[in-house]
């Protein structure tokens, strides 16, 4: 199994080879997931000792197929396969394809490794590999300064999160003693923690403490992750301690970096500089999903304290609204979708937080089995399909028209029926319109949050819930603004008619197109000159793909269409997947509820829940309102722009500039950090080294008379070294003993 997955990173020579490998990986992944469907316990295998600490702790690299991991395997490999297939056409004109496929496959392999990790150290290892692969892929068009800059930004911003994550893991480690929780291996502790009934080490096969009941999977004493963690943690930290809260928040920091949550969200929109296929992968299945997965498994295996859980809900809820506002203003097709990703990830984070509020680590009466992390993971699952769909559709559009500015598109529906339908499906799913997938999962997350808010009763949770509801409205609004602008209406607005191009672009236009394009990593086909007319205007920079020669925008060939159709199908049916028998194993805590009526996986005694029905109705209504607003402004070929000078112009500009986060961060980096560095450099050169040179100067002045000794011949220096050495010997053999105690002056050298 490991070999099957690891071997995929070998597939680098050619796209089809990559497809074959990824296909094999998908089959393996599905097989693993199907096995997991029927398994009573997670499969766990500790493979080899990676690093041993001197105190006897071993860091073991093992494999753990947890329910969530199995779910992720499906997501990663389904989306991965489709993206790799799609790449075979989309990336066909690019340089450096072997590198592209190698990085793509390593990316997928790292992500598979991540979801199969059995401890935090292995997790970190894979986590960083995922990060560096995304760095390489975002910077794939490395000739473009924007791409290189975006890659740098992605790496450094996520690195900030990583460092927080490291510290959180250190806290776990020092509090629990182990990253994999093998305390029984050490065999040293047997007593209970003072003042609790908690055993100091896991007891085979199960034990209970503080109201939790814990079972060792497989009866294996080498427990994966920290399944024993919650008890140990609660006991170790003490219930009122702030340390688990801090650890939880640090973990959140790591997840926020990876999953682009406020305030570490800035890298994701810029990451659009990468190829669209990479964007699809990053947004749907790999990079950003890792952060949510981290939150979910931490919530299950360790748990968050109430404070940390509320903060997670807050960050998630706020981000879902905050990112939506920025999506409202962006003119770039990919960036709009990127903001929607940030927003949807906010929902997922909020869901994890809400399930952690319900199963509060510090509440001894909470039932750990009620942890509903399956709910946000369900959203991740459905989101992966419709987000990949949206990106790949956007990629098809960009491929066809050669720009990313939605105000330059329009009326593409007739020319690109498959793409427009696919994107419509994706948009409906994203907006949460039944029966598309997003409706079910998003409603579950909202319902869970509402449940957490009512259970906890804190006004803050209600407020964050409010943000999330507004986010629903915004999502529908910006998604359909995008769709109407791109596809509706009679014909293209700024696009040259299809028969005018014929590859004779105006040289001036070509020259005026951005320098990045002239030197760009994208290899322009001759027909590309036509469309550099578009690029020469203020279109957002991006890989300006050239369309097929002699024709206007049209649907891509089957290589790109098949993934679209498959993903569109999945975006429709993914919401019903929990109805498959056994699937609930992969989604702990999810009950498939439609409008208050529980259909499947219901908790016992479930009845019609009017609150849930109202919530469902409300969010559906908000989504519909959003779509209607979008229609009224941009529907049927209308192009509404915020008039300059109007009352909306100022907020519009703020949104366009992304609330000036980039400016603030860049300013901090360039002025504060670099400024300190330059200042320190000055101190280093002129104060520290200056002192040394001053001493040199004093000596050289003082030794003017002795200059003849400085012959520059090293043998002379060596002679002086020997003389000095002898002097020291004499000093220590005679003088020091005499100084220390008069009795030893009789030391006499022999030989």
């Amino acid at each position: 199994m490991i070999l099957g997955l690891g071997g995929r990173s070998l597939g680098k020579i050619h796209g089809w080879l990559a497809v074959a490998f990824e296909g094999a990986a998908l089959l393996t992944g599905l097989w693993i997931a199907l096995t997991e469907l029927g398994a009573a316990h997670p499969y766990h295998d500790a493979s080899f000792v990676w690093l041993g600490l001197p105190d006897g702790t071993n860091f073991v690299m093992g494999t753990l197929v947890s329910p969530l991991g199995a779910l992720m395997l499906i997501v990663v490999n389904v989306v991965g396969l489709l993206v790799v297939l799609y790449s075979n056409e989309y990336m066909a004109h690019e340089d450096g394809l072997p590198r592209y496929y190698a990085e793509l496959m390593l990316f997928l392999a790292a992500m598979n490794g991540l979801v199969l990790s059995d401890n935090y150290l292995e997790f970190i290892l894979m986590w960083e590999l995922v990060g560096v692969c995304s760095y390489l892929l975002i910077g794939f068009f490395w000739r473009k300064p924007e791409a290189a800059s975006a890659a740098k930004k992605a790496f450094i911003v996520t690195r900030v999160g990583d460092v927080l994550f490291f510290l959180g893991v250190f806290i776990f480690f020092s509090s629990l003693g182990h990253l994999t929780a093998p305390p029984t291996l050490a065999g040293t502790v047997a007593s209970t923690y003072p003042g609790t009934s908690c055993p100091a080490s896991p007891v085979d096969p199960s034990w209970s403490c503080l109201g939790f009941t814990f079972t060792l999977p497989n009866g294996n004493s080498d427990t994966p992750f920290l399944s024993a963690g919650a008890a140990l943690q609660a006991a170790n930290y003490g219930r009122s301690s702030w340390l688990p809260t801090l650890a939880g928040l640090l973990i959140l920091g790591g997840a926020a970096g990876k999953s682009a949550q406020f305030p570490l969200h800035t890298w994701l929109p810029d990451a659009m500089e990468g190829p669209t296929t990479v964007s699809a992968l990053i947004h749907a299945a790999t990079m950003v999903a890792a952060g949510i997965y981290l939150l979910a498994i931490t919530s299950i295996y360790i748990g968050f304290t109430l404070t940390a859980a509320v903060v997670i809900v807050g960050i998630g809820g706020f981000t879902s609204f905050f990112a939506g506002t920025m999506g409202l203003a962006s003119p770039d097709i990919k960036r709009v979708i990127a903001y929607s990703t940030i927003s949807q990830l906010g929902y997922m984070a909020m869901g994890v937080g809400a399930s952690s509020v319900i199963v509060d680590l510090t509440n001894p009466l909470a039932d750990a089995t009620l942890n509903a992390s399956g709910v946000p993971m369900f959203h991740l699952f459905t989101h992966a399909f419709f987000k990949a769909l949206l990106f790949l559709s956007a990629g098809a559009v960009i491929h066809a028209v050669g720009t990313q500015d939605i105000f330059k598109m329009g009326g593409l529906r007739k020319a690109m029926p498959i793409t427009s339908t696919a994107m419509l499906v994706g948009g409906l799913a994203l907006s949460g319109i039944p029966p598309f997938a997003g409706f079910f999962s998003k409603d579950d997350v909202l319902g869970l949050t509402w449940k957490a808010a009512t259970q906890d009763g804190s006004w803050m949770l209600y407020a964050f819930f409010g943000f999330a509801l507004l986010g629903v409205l915004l999502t529908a609004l910006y998604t359909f603004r995008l769709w109407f602008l791109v596809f509706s209406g009679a014909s293209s607005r700024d696009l040259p008619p299809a028969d005018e191009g014929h590859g004779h672009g105006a040289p001036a236009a070509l020259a005026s197109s951005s320098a990045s394009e002239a030197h760009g990593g994208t290899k322009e086909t001759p027909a590309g000159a036509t469309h550099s007319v578009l690029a020469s205007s203020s279109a957002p920079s991006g890989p300006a793909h050239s369309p097929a020669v002699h024709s206007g925008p049209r649907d891509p060939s089957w290589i790109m269409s098949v993934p679209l159709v498959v993903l569109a199908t999945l975006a429709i049916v993914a919401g019903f997947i929990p109805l498959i028998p056994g699937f609930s194993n992969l989604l702990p805590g999810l009950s498939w509820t439609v409008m208050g009526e529980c259909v499947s996986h219901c908790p016992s005694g479930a009845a019609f829940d009017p609150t849930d029905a109202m919530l469902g109705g409300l969010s559906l209504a908000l989504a519909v309102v959003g779509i209607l607003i979008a229609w009224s402004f941009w529907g049927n070929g209308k192009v509404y722009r915020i008039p300059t000078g109007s009352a909306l112009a100022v907020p519009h500009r703020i949104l366009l500039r992304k609330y000036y986060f980039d400016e603030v961060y860049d300013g901090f980096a360039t002025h504060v950090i670099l400024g300190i560095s330059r200042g320190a450099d000055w101190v280093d050169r002129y104060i520290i080294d200056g002192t040394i040179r001053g001493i040199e100067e004093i000596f050289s002045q003082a030794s003017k008379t002795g200059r003849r000794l400085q012959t520059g011949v090293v043998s002379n220096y060596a002679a002086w070294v020997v003389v000095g050495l002898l002097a020291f010997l004499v000093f220590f053999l005679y003088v020091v003993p005499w100084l220390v105690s008069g009795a030893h002056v009789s030391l006499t050298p022999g030989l």
Partner: protein
Amino acid sequence: MDVPWLSLLLAVSLVGAFATFFTGRYARWAALAVSLATLGIVLGIMALFQPSLQLNGNACQQGGFQLCELHTWFTFASPSGGFSVDYLVGVDGISLPMILLSAVITLAAVVYHWDEEKDPHGFFGLVLLTNAGCLGVFVSLDVLLFFVFWEIVLIPMFFLIGHWGGPRRSYAALKFFVYTHVASVVMFVALLAMVFLGGWNSFDFVDTFGRQSTNMANLSAPVQALLFGSLLFGFGVKLPMVPFHTWLPDAHVEAPTGGSVLLAGILLKLGGYGLIRLASPLLPLGRTLLFPVMLFLALLSIVWGAYLSLSQRDLKRLVAYSSINHMGIVLLAIALWTQLGVMAAVLLMFAHGLVSGLLFMVSGSVHHTYGTRDIPSVGGMTARTPVLATMLMIGSLASLGLPALVSFPAEFSALLATWSDPRVHYLVLLPLMALVVTAGFYIWMMQRLSFGPPRGIPDKAHDLPFPEVMGMSLLVGLIVLYGILPLLIEQVIPVAAIFGIPCGAGTVPGATVWGACPSLPFGP
């Protein structure tokens, strides 16, 4: 133990080094043969090394060393018995990774400089002599022998910088020599003071595991602190430790590539090795008293090194300052003086040797491919010299601690050791934040050098010649190998003859050699 392996190692490396001076135009083949032979013997020693403590035999073996060789060099008669200066060598879990590193780095440097045109016999001879000196330092267990080898290292490096270096080579060479020599004099005075004040009857510090350690315990805390402070200065200059680091950037910038590789790859490790081998175990009271000073200087080095790298324009200076950052982490880990800390320190020295060696090779290649190392004036290397750009990327990613490359387990262990120590604990935030800065300057440097539209002198740009690729590939291979399987090198470290390190819960601190601690890890 029929074959005197360590003597053979020293003899081959020393004689080979001197012989290479007289081989004329065959110097490179001689150098290759000698460095391969050295590496072969080192690998043989590794194979013979027992992965657990061997405590029978003479004092040296009882001290936890293996492959011991003891010959009396000369003796002083004294009323209280003989006073001997010995040729005493042996290896343990601390020195083994270091001699492996030394042999590997030397081989890589020789291969990298295969096409050296300026006085190749002198160049290769001096490189090999440096290696011989370093190997000698790492295996000698006698204060005088240690010091002799310590001084041997300085001289060839002085010439390497002074003759084969850049435009300001004379200044840099002299600065390097005087600065480090002042440090070694201070160190030597302190070592002699330890021997005489402690009332040893030989210069062997191996014997300290028996009687001499009790002698050391008679020294009062202030005296120990004074001696420890002197040793900290002596070894700290080598490390280098802020604020005694300014010789390093100058020396690196002016040194030839091979010189830089040796300097960063091996010479800096001498300082850390000395602290682990001599200063910390022998002067426990001094160590305890000066712990805050060490801690402060270590954190200062970490932060200072990271921040200064950010504003460097010269690629070599950037790598040099990042070395200060990494060696600061080493100093921090040593200062903790826990098993985990020392293990992390040795591992990190090993890792840093490989990674900085690679990065200095890359810097050298950038210099003679593009004619400058000024980061802003070169760009888009990926377009013209993809192999060089790839090497730069591997080196940078390794240095910033990417998992699956060798620095990651080392840095992870060091940070974990820092966090686990209740005296330090939240101060781990400083090295953690420095990690972000480290990532920042490497990524930014790569963005400017490798990506974007090509800048610099396009006509001169040709990709790496074969020997340089080979030299780098050797290091890259090991960086990846030990990154994926760090246990390969890490498992020997606890077989260490380090005295006075806390064994863990339940044992009296300092009562035994580390390698004899009850719970050795690495079970299945």
